[in-house]
């Protein structure tokens, strides 16, 4: 039901977390998953290759998830990429800020593969690029 060929960028400063999220995405069916350890690292990667989905943690050193989101949304080349924000706890003000800045959805840690899939499905309704082919 998704376009599994797209490149996904997972951003988190903690390697274990990247691995966990990568694993969940693989279970859903995504085949191309890259990692970045902070917003700066992510921007560099986003500029050097085409990505179809960003899954980013919020709290990171150097450049956090919100800064990354703002940078992505103001960049003409990147602004259409679906952006899923990972947060540790649902904090209203923060989430509102993220939504204002153009996040496609957010997910609260810890989450299961099922929840992740649901969130991605919601994003896919708005952003068809994430959707799979005609039979998807």
């Amino acid at each position: 039901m998704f376009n599994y060929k797209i490149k996904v960028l997972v951003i988190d400063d903690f390697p274990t977390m990247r691995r966990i999220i990568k694993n969940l995405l693989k279970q859903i069916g995504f085949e191309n998953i890259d990692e970045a350890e902070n917003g700066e690292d992510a921007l560099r990667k986003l500029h050097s290759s085409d990505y179809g989905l960003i899954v980013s943690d919020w709290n990171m050193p150097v450049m956090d998830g919100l800064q990354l989101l703002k940078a992505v949304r103001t960049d003409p080349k990147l602004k259409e990429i679906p952006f899923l924000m990972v947060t540790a706890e649902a904090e209203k003000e923060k989430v509102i800020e993220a939504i204002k800045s153009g996040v496609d959805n957010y997910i609260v840690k810890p989450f299961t593969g099922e929840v992740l899939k649901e969130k991605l499905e919601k994003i896919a309704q708005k952003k068809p690029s994430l959707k799979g082919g005609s039979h998807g």
Partner: protein
Amino acid sequence: MANEMDEIINEFIIEAEEILEKLDPLFVQLEQKGHDIEIVNEIFRGMHTLKGAAGFLGFQSIVDVAHKAETILKKIREGEFTLTSKITDAILKATDTIRILISQIKAKEETTEDISPVLNLLDNVLIEALKKKEDFEQEEKLPPVKPEEEPKPTKPEEVVTQIPKEKEVSTLRVDVERIDKVMDLAGEIVLARNRLLNLAHKLEAKYTGDDHIEGLVETVSFLDRVTSDLQLAVMRMRMQPLQKVFGKFPRMVRDLAKTLGKDVDLEIYGEDTEVDKSVIEHIGDPLVHIIRNSIDHGVEFPEERISKGKPPKGKIIINAYQKGTQIVIDVSDDGKGIDIEAVKAKAITKGLITLEEAEKMSEDSIINLIFLPGFSTKDISTELSGRGVGMDVVKSNVAKLNGYVEIFTEKDKGTTFRISLPLTLAIIQAMMVQVGEEIYAIPQSMIEETLRVYTKEIKEVVGQRVLTVREKVLPVFILNEILGVSSNLDSEKKYILVASVGERRFCISVDAVLGQEEIVIKTINGINSEECGIMGATITGDGKVVLILDLAIISRKIYAIK
């Protein structure tokens, strides 16, 4: 999938431990610097990260503890209240608990640790801080951030879109066993290289001018260089910064000083100094012991310090640096110094030395008595420095790393413990010497220079042979006598090695100096190296097994006899 999960958990354990390791010194920094938002942020992030990952892996206890600690840190970060030592203690307790939980996960045990006391502690601290804040606010409002701090310039939004310069950090986690295997093989190559060099030189002498021989010699000398580079490269792989060991000291010093009612500042220099992994693994305990000793026996109580005209706060300085082919770690305190008379008296009552011996001993050798097993200047060893083990453990642990410990002390000025370690443990530069029929290797690091002198230049002063080297009179010891090997040469010229072990300089006379060689130390099982002054054996270029002498032990023995 189960395997993947195991791998993720293993990775989590390693990384969680790394995070915890980084946290402790941050707390101490925070206590010293006061309210520093950057540090609070870093601690907060650490807790946050632990909580996030632990949640995924189902380690609920870690999530609970980290969450409570995080809540408090968040309030501090947001300036709701400032850090007090009570809060620090509670959060430190939280990190300790998490550490225990992680070690249980590591041991594949059920995480049975009862976390309710620490949760309660954190709750109480939070409630108390919030209450205090209310009281405080009624009185007056003060900005939580220190006023003298410069306001941080806010980053303009455009900066964010700038792409930073390409800097790929590519690291690889490799099993230590694999690196050790490479290290081992590199050692074998060194031995083979030495043997080849030897053979090539012999062949060169025999068939001078032969084209093939020239090619061989050329190739061998190329191999020689490459082998040295390889050796260095492998050594580097095993090197880690001392930060790994030093990181836990600020917390330890803080806790210890507090328990004893003393006030101690810790300064650390040279934590970037890189040492072999095995040094990292084994130097921790001796250092902990020395630091404990310095706080417990060295640094005085504040009142005592004031009466001596010293600042009430004591100071311990750890300084690590490279000196030639050695790594030196100094632990200095500005305390009362070691009481030589007290040490002497103690050693006599403990039956470690006799009264007559004590009278003949130099101050240095008396101070070194504290390294004897069963020595402790305090009658009841305190829980802190005592723990049933004495400074002898320090010495023996350092000796295992082929290093040695020295003590410099001055009454009321303080004491410095100096640990000197070889840069690498496996391969060393050695001087090959001949004594009688035997060949021995002596680590180059301990030899300053080699001389050839006329036998008549060696003078005798009150029963001690001496030689003047560059206007300094140094004692001369004949290696044959020390080792009990007969000398077959009684020539008019002698080979002299000027050795320097720590602060001691002396000359060693040998029958012949055969040259320098890179040797691989192989330990010999079943010998007491402390007894015989032999640190190991090696195989030389011409295939002989040669014993490696430990000048540190030998010098200690000859000076003790003296």
